[in-house]
Each structure stands twice: as C-alpha cells, then as structure tokens.
C-alpha cells in the first residue's frame, strides 16, 4: 500500500508541477501578446472620461477578467494539491479520518467553484465584446466535466463519513 501511495504521490507532484508550469507559461504569453496592446491603449486613453461609459471600462474589465481566469486556474491547481494531503493521510494509515472528509469536500467545492466562475468570466468577456459566448458550446468544453467530478468528490466525502462511523463502531466492538 505504501509503495502505491508513493507512486501516486509522485504522479500527483508531476501533474501539479506540469500544471503550474503551463499556467506560468500562459501568464508570460499573456503579458507579451496582450498586455502590450493594453499599455498602448492606456497611453492614449482619455483620463478625464468616466470609467463606466467609456472605452476605459471595457479595456480595464477585459484585462481584469483575463487575469481573473489565471487566478481561477491557480485556484484549481491549489484544489488539486489537496490530493497530496489525502495521500499523506493514507500513507499514515488514517483512511477514514476527518481530514480526508474535509479535503474531499474542499476539492469538490473548488472544482465546482472553478467551473462556475470560469463560465461567468467567459460570459463577462463576451459581454464586453472581445469574445463570443454560447452557453451550450461552453458546456461542451472539457473543463465543465469538473462539475460532475466535484460532485463525485462530495459523494466520496459522504462515503468516507459513513466509513468513519463504521470504523468507530468496529473499534468499539469488543
């Protein structure tokens, strides 16, 4: 069991590092490809114009929301890092611990929050007018599978809760 846990921990670390490096690379490309346009626009923008009715709001919102998408991807990676905590608990033979139940719920919450937030941000990007948004097309995207995955983690948390009760009952059966 310990060997399997070590292999899983190794794989999880690999996936986490790969996800972080992809995120950092995307952020670097974002800065080079898009931020330049933003800087150019900022130089020529009318500073006296009100933020809500001008190009200011649109440009600022676009870049804020684009940056927000990176933040949420980081949040997803943070959620994924809970797998390491679960594996650590399993390594210590605390299979049905309170911590594991808590971690499964957190992973579920983060997966669902990420998907809903990204859908909202993509809708806002479309509303600003810099991209297109079709709800059903977005639902077909790979990342929306994180909603059933999140729900599956909630179910796992419930199963582990029941497992913990059964373990306690077993320990108190003489």
């Amino acid at each position: 069991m310990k060997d399997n846990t070590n292999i899983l921990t190794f794989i999880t670390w690999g996936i986490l590092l790969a996800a972080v490096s992809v995120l950092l690379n995307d952020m670097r490309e974002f800065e080079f490809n898009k931020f330049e346009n933003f800087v150019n626009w900022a130089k020529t923008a009318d500073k006296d114009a009100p933020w809500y009715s001008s190009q200011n709001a649109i440009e600022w919102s676009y870049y804020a929301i684009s940056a927000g998408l990176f933040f949420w991807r980081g949040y997803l990676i943070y959620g994924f890092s809970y797998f390491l905590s679960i594996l650590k608990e399993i390594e210590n033979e605390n299979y049905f611990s309170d911590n594991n139940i808590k971690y499964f719920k957190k992973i579920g919450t983060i997966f669902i929050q990420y998907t809903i937030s990204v859908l909202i941000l993509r809708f806002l990007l479309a509303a600003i007018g810099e991209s297109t948004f079709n709800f059903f097309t977005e639902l077909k995207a790979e990342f929306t599978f994180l909603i059933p995955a999140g729900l599956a983690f909630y179910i796992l948390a419930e199963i582990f809760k029941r497992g913990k009760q059964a373990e306690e009952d077993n320990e108190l059966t003489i």
Partner: protein
Amino acid sequence: MPIIVNLDVMLAKRKMKSNELADIVGITTANLSILKTGKAKAIRFSTLEAICKALECQPADILEYTEV
C-alpha cells in the same frame, strides 16, 4: 445507554483482576476498560462466551437492562 455492564461486580465476586481476565479472554486491557466503562457499542458473541467461561457465569450476570 440502557445496557449496563456489571463486569466489575463479577470480577469482585470471583476475586479476579482486570488484566487477568483480559489475558484469559484474549483482549487488551484497554478494550476491557472500554467494556467496563460502558463505552463499547457492541460485544461479540465470542468475547461474551470467553468472559462467561472465564468468570463461570451467565451473560445476564454481566449485562443488565435498565430503563433510562
């Protein structure tokens, strides 16, 4: 819990110590303590049988039901 474990009474009657009983029955003293203090949620028939055999008594001598 309305089930009371009178193991202490039977141990006193037989002049036997807890650790002696635990050794005979084949359970740890910690588990015997759980049983004596009423924290146990269940008792296996095999354990009950071993306790009855060791103390030469009936299950009713050890377990008692009282209305809460």
